[in-house]
């Protein structure tokens, strides 16, 4: 395993430079008075070009990514990102200034319109905005749409309901949009019961935010009854589309009564996830909410694409320009290379892979919710001689990125595993073999697991101390 390289500041030696600009041809006429000018930059690293290159290469070698191996981070849908996406996103033909006249960027506008058509076809909703910069931004946008809609109905409401299995971003987004949060408990099967929901419904409930399949990997099978109960109460159904990968081409949320949903292009549609992405969280709405979508909207009139900036009922702009355009290219590249007839196999294989892991790991780990698994499976730490964290840390020693741990919160010591459809059976078998080995170690030498990881550039970090007393600045001569 690679070693942790020293900081670039520690490599610095006085007088080294990485480049020579030559003497200035312009007479020096400083814009600032001498007393305002800095004569040197304190402790700026001084290194040669080759040292800089090696420094960053050394850092890059510490990376773990999908190009290195399986990344079974539950609820994140870390699927392989096909290289054709990158090739097309880098194509010169798509590079344009955001202020370019629309006549000159018809191809880019068409790309946005076609991606929207794809999302409409896959979700059964009426229209999408591609502007949100990430999933949580999409949630927030969706909440603003719901708020504006209800306000225009003269029925501003104050409360958003959220299941206890939800992603933490859901309550945050609703709270940011001005709502009070009420938590709805899941039942013994890990899903929302209509009667329980009914007891929460009153004239203040604006919406329920529901993830389907939920974070236990279980389909919320009461969803149509839930939608009816909400609509009868004048409330809306928001669906968090983080787990759309399980439904792709099989179930259309719009057919289930969903009013608003966001989807994550960086999950379901194979655009980069993590490391800054950037993400992209398009928001789709049913037809009665179309007028409230953010601007700008790309529309086709005749054989030309136009951009509308001033829908009177729109919630307005939520991002500069047109969203993460280069991410949109990747998503359309993915959908176009799969083709409509193959898209269903994404969900089928994702579900098959998760169920294969469930079946093989179930003899070794406690499965707290026995309902059918879709795209991911959640085990608990019940009856284990070590903690979930110890298992996750030990996976690092085997060169595997751990699964999501301690989430969802309703499972004690949760291990949330989502293999995605892009992992082969051989890779899953390797992962299972590693898990079997680790669980055997846990039984025979639990103390070894408490010491994990042993093979990584840094050993087990004191995350508690780091959070309580963070050291945010490096200073020369000060030892950490």
């Amino acid at each position, binding site marked *: 395993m690679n070693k942790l390289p020293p900081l670039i500041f520690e490599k610095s030696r006085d007088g080294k430079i990485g480049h020579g600009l030559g003497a200035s041809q312009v007479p020096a006429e400083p814009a600032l008075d001498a007393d305002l000018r800095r004569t040197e930059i304190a402790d700026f690293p001084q290194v040669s070009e080759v040292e800089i290159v090696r420094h960053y290469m050394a850092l890059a070698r510490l990376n773990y990514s999908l190009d290195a191996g399986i990344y079974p981070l539950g609820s994140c849908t870390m699927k392989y990102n096909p290289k054709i996406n990158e090739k097309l996103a880098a194509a010169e033909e798509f590079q344009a200034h955001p202020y370019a006249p629309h006549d000159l960027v018809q191809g880019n506008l068409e790309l946005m319109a076609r991606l929207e058509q794809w999302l409409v076809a896959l979700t059964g909703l009426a229209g999408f905005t591609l502007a949100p910069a990430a999933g949580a931004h999409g949630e927030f946008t969706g909440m603003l749409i719901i708020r504006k809609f209800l306000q225009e109905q003269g029925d501003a409401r104050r409360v958003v309901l959220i299941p206890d299995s939800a992603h*933490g971003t859901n309550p945050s987004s609703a709270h940011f949009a001005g709502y009070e949060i009420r938590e709805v408990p899941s039942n013994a099967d890990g899903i929302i019961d209509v009667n329980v929901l009914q007891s929460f419904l009153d004239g203040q409930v604006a919406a329920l935010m529901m993830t389907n399949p939920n974070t236990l990997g279980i389909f919320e099978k009461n969803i149509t009854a839930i939608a009816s109960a909400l609509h009868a109460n004048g409330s809306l159904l928001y669906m968090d589309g983080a787990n759309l990968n399980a439904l792709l081409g099989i179930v259309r949320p719009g057919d289930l009564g969903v009013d608003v949903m966001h989807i994550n292009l960086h999950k379901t549609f194979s655009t980069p996830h993590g490391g800054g992405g950037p993400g992209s969280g398009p928001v789709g709405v049913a037809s009665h909410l179309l007028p409230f979508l953010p601007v700008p909207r790309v529309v086709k009139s005749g054989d030309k694409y136009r951009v509308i900036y001033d829908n009177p009922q729109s919630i307005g702009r939520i991002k500069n320009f047109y969203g993460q355009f280069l991410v949109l290219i990747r998503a359309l590249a993915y959908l176009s290379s799969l083709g409509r007839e193959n898209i269903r196999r994404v969900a089928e294989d994702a579900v098959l892979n998760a169920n294969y892991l469930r079946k093989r790991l179930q003899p070794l780990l406690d499965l707290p919710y026995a309902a059918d698994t879709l795209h991911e499976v959640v085990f608990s730490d019940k009856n284990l001689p070590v903690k979930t964290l110890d298992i996750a840390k030990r996976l690092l020693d085997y060169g595997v990125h751990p699964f999501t741990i*301690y989430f969802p*919160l309703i499972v004690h010591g949760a291990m949330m595993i989502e293999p995605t459809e892009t992992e082969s059976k051989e890779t899953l078998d390797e992962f299972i073999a590693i898990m079997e080995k680790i669980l055997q170690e846990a039984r025979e030498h639990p103390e070894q697991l408490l010491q994990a990881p042993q093979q990584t550039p840094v050993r087990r970090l004191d*995350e*508690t101390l780091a*959070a*309580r007393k963070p050291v945010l600045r490096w200073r020369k001569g000060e030892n950490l």
Partner: protein
Amino acid sequence: MALENLLFTKEHEWLRMDGDSADVGITEYAQHELGDVVYVELPALGREFKKGDPAANIESVKAVSDVFSPLSGTITAVNAKLSNNPELVNQEPYGDGFLFKMKLSHMDEIKELLDQKKYEEYLQGISGE
């Protein structure tokens, strides 16, 4: 620590009554379940809460959790030590790790709280699940 003088909630908070005021904290069980506490967000002085309103926030290495106001009332003091020493919640949940003090507005709500014996029975019920 004289736990027999404390009152408890099913949300794992404790109260130490003093006339119409109460010190409020989280229980040994709660701190153990949360794991290492790294940050505590306390309410502003003078804030009024109804019973069950989220009143404080505890961030541990595992999760961020709401602390619900165990009774209705007004915040009269908060434990300032926690801003630099959140670990007190783990180390002394019934002592220096208390969260805040509140003046109660609905004394009759006390009837709904549990005494030590009932709380311990409740805990046994949970762990038996």
